[in-house]
């Protein structure tokens, strides 16, 4: 059974702090996506990473795909209350199956 683990499960920080959340698996993925979901809404795509070792930046968010394409991290600089939400990673296998992680619930306190 292929699994994606995310850590931490819950994170509560003060506005302005930095944070990193992790997405790990024993499986190799052809790509990995990060989504953010706000309460009462569906997940929204933040980024897709495809190449091992790839780093992508989206304003204050930095995404990294592991060299072996088994893990990924999301780093947020100077977190703001608008960053609050559930962060989901999703890995796509070579068999075109998508696996979602359980998510990291982030709360940024003003």
């Amino acid at each position, binding site marked *: 059974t292929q699994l994606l683990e995310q850590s931490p499960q819950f994170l509560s920080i003060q506005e302005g702090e930095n944070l990193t959340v992790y997405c790990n698996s024993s499986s190799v993925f*052809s*790509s990995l*996506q990060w*989504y953010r979901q706000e*309460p*009462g*809404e*569906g*997940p*929204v*795509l933040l980024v*897709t990473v*495809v190449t091992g070792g790839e780093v992508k930046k989206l304003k204050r968010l930095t995404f990294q795909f592991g060299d072996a394409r088994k893990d990924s991290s999301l780093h947020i600089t100077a977190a703001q209350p608008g960053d609050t939400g*559930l962060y*989901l990673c*999703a890995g*796509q296998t070579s068999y*075109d199956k*998508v696996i*979602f*992680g*359980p*998510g990291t*619930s982030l709360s940024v306190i003003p």
Partner: protein
Amino acid sequence: EADIYQTPRYLVIGTGKKITLECSQTMGHDKMYWYQQDPGMELHLIHYSYGVNSTEKGDLSSESTVSRIRTEHFPLTLESARPSHTSQYLCASSESDLNQPQHFGDGTRLSIL
């Protein structure tokens, strides 16, 4: 800006009723998905489709059924709702090429009394 629409957004209904949750997308995507999600928790895939007349069960066993008669439409039906069906149901679609992300609707929050 949503190109995938789910109705209703909220539904409170009594036990034993037949329910159909609607999902439509205007992007021409062949792949469509239904997920079940409790608030703030992980997504569980319950059904998916790779095109018209194609439907498959997902990883989580569900008493619901789906149909795919048209590319843009992927409704989910519960023949007899029970309190254990109370949850949020999310519909998504994606292009057929490898490594394409999923586009999600805003979900239907279902409560069975």
